[in-house]
């Protein structure tokens, strides 16, 4: 069955603070091992299990850091 939600992370706006990783209830976000252009480890979606709850969006201090999507009805 398809996941109810999905997330898009803007890795060049992300500062690797980790607050979204902490906030995500099913723990489907992680900090990447790679660096972005400013030397931060950007957050990334592990690729499965997002419920579309939206809390990572509110927990992220960057205006466009995270976009949360939900499965269209």
């Amino acid at each position, binding site marked *: 069955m*398809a996941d109810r*939600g999905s997330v898009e992370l803007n890795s060049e706006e992300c500062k690797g*603070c980790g607050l979204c990783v902490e906030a995500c209830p099913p723990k489907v976000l992680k900090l990447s091992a790679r660096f972005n252009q400013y030397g931060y480890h950007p957050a990334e979606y592990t690729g499965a299990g997002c419920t*579309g709850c*939206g*809390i990572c969006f509110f*927990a992220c*201090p960057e*205006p466009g850091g995270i976009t949360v999507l939900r499965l269209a009805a």
Partner: protein
Amino acid sequence: MPEYAPVHAKPHCFYERYERKAELQHQTHYCPGCGHGIVHKLLAQAIDGLGIQDRTILVSPVGCSVFAYYYFDVGNIQVAHGRAPAVATAVKRSRPESIVISYQGDGDLAAIGSAEILHAANRGELITVIFVNNAIYGMTGGQMAPTTLLGMKTTTSPQGRTAAGEGFPIHVCELLASLEAPAFIERVALGNNQQIMRAARVLRRALENQVKGAGFSFVEVLAQCPTVWGMQPVEAQKFVREKMTGTFALGNFRDRRG
């Protein structure tokens, strides 16, 4: 392939790009994990949600949030240290149809600006004040604020704040709640998901009050300053949750509907 549609995306009332240093126009100037960034997002969501972007005027302070005008595509004024409630008073009285927000840090509001906030609240000005309390002077590198917790080490209380030496932390909500005029006073925090979502609702309420003409509305947000506290953001969030809320009780102190 399943189809997904965005439900939470960058709020409209943020600019697409920010007029700051050339290569940084897609990022805020805040440190990683800074509470101001989260308060900005919650505020932007509330402005969008109420459909008031075109009539909002944001008065930004001196402190780390001095550059709020880089980000919010609303009317903006940046004012002298501590004076935001006085300027907001003038703006609101001369443009009553505008939604006027005074955004301030704890050094700005509770130290140098303690007179302005007290009297704006006492006059019951029809403005919304957002008070970001991170218990420190962030921008200037970590001097003690009136809201610094007892025992907390800062550059100006290197042994830790003591009541005998530096006085007790000032509880601004409780002080303002001793006045008759304010319509709404609440303290919220960014310490965990639940607290963040409560903060989102309360910020929206404080703006909605102004739309309805309810009266002076004040929201204190307990927020992390990971950099100056010398903590990782997640650890700093835990400090907000476990330590700051111990000194500053969360809750509503006034809710008088317009």
